[in-house]
């Protein structure tokens, strides 16, 4: 960013109230009205549907609200229930497992493809880039239909091909061990294109001279990757890791379609539990407490990101 230039260009500028011949008071009032006018629509929406819900969810999480009758204050009961309910603890474990599987796999797939796409030796790079990005615009729910058909134990094409190759995977979506890797796979498929594009942008930012210098020093391809590409990509990498972790915490769509949380709750996640307890069981207080747990974990992760990118963050806000 050309922040420095912008700052310098910004300083001498004064609002027209002081610039023109108008009286300051008149100018100030009109100016304030203008500023409010520009900001009001968005701020009202954000206050009503982000700010207030955040406060409200916290409030609700300390009550036994159910949508009927007057909610009673129950202190930390809901939070105690969260951490003593084996199903919720299980869902948290599942969410963590999902994140641990999803993040490295998505990143490795994305990084490998980005490195290949970045190579001068590959023709039609634009075509490949667009094709590989395509899954990102397909809805996770719709992608899940395709995957469930591909993996169908009787008529699934992928299952059939694997069988022909001598690999029997059976009904993966009904398998308590394999169901989770399968829903992760669908999510990886949907999102690798997004991370790939971010890596690609990061790769293009690495100065060519570094590679030339490494080549002069006799570094081979692998060494150039380890000593030039990887360190130069560390900011991008951190960004992608955190974004992927946050996305993993919110896993819902493809799981809802593919397994509904089963078999034996092996793919139930936190967001599935929020949906179930809040909108099916109408246990609003409990669901709000669970929401707050999700919120806090997400905020902590975001904070790590913010601290890590602290300097860059300042750049973008100035």
């Amino acid at each position: 960013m050309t922040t420095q230039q912008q700052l310098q260009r910004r300083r001498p500028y004064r609002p027209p109230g002081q610039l023109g011949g108008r009286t300051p008071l008149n100018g100030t009032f009109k100016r304030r009205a203008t500023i409010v006018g520009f900001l009001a629509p968005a701020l009202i929406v954000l206050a009503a549907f982000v700010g207030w819900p955040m406060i409200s969810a916290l409030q609700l999480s300390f009550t036994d609200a159910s949508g009927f009758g007057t909610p009673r204050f129950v202190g930390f009961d809901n939070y105690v229930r969260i951490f003593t309910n084996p199903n919720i603890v299980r869902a948290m474990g599942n969410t963590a497992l999902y994140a641990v599987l999803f993040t490295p796999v998505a990143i490795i797939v994305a990084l490998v493809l980005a490195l290949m796409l970045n190579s001068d030796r590959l023709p039609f790079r634009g075509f490949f880039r667009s094709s590989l990005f395509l899954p990102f615009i397909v809805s996770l729910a719709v992608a899940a239909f395709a995957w469930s058909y591909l993996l169908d134990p009787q008529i699934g094409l992928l299952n059939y091909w694997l069988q022909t190759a001598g690999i029997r995977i059976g009904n993966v979506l009904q398998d308590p061990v394999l169901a989770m890797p399968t829903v992760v796979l669908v999510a990886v498929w949907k999102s690798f294109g997004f991370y790939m594009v971010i890596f690609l942008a990061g790769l293009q930012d690495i100065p060519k001279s570094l590679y030339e210098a490494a080549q002069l020093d006799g570094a081979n391809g692998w060494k150039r990757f380890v000593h030039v590409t990887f360190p130069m990509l560390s900011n991008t990498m951190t960004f992608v890791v955190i974004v992927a972790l946050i996305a993993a915490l919110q896993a819902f769509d493809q799981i809802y379609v593919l397994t509904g949380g089963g078999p034996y709750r092996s793919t139930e996640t936190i967001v599935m539990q929020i949906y179930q307890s809040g909108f099916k069981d109408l246990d609003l207080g409990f669901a709000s407490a669970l929401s707050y747990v999700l919120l806090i974990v997400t905020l902590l992760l975001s904070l790590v990101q913010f601290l890590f990118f602290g300097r860059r963050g300042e750049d973008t806000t100035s």
Partner: protein
Amino acid sequence: MTALTQPRTIPATNTRSKRTRDPVRWLYFAAFLVVTVALMLPVIIIVLTAFKPASEVNAFPPSLFPHQWTFANFKAIFSALPFGRLIANSFGFAGGVTLFALMFDSLAAYALARLDFRGSKILLIVIIASLMIPFQATLIPIYKIVSDLGWVNTFAGLIAPRAADAFGIFFLRQFFISLPRDLDNAARIDGASEWRIFRSIILPNAVPALMTLGIFTFVNNWNDLLWPLVFTTDQKMGTITSGLTLLTGPGGIIPQGIMMAGALIAILPLAIMFLLVQRRFIESVASTGLK
């Protein structure tokens, strides 16, 4: 097409012919093509299965291509679901959110980028901080507000909570500050109102950014499952995405061919939109990711 490569792929003609004859290059290409086709398999299967007759969809051994192409699945999906209505709802919901969000976000972004006022920096930080709140975490209070307003199963209920969003404001603000100040300062000295400057100087110059944000917002909302699932209890108000899951979600059983026809229709508008602006779209996704 090869936007990222353009500066480097215009070498002198002799190097070019040398490059096209490079066998490793074409080996590399072939390998990459295989990987890409493999990764495209789910999309390919949606397209091909949608045109298969039911007998072939369930046949063993399964085949990739239909032996006999049919439109029967497309007819069937319209009788299995109020599908025309769902398509209209998806356009209404995703389109409505996009329209309002672009309007409200750009107004707020303009104020943050151009109207220097006290507290603007703090406001921007608050907006950026609110980016970190996952919507799933505030879904229950949002639902309560929407239901208190009597907006469940209405477009108002689907659209209003998303009529502005922090990401959009931040994204457009970043774009607006990159536009040269001289552009609007000249107009300001000539006595043009801020509204006028916004409308006739800033917005026309921000069309690419508005388009990217618009497509991003449209795609996200069109594809969202949890949101329409929560705010519409009446099947007639659902979107394509939520409507299709009724057939396939827990307990739903439907012939796969019909499902794929529905899936294809759900993807089509986005795919067309994406193909039209793919290069610019991918590049701005990449650059926002890094900011």
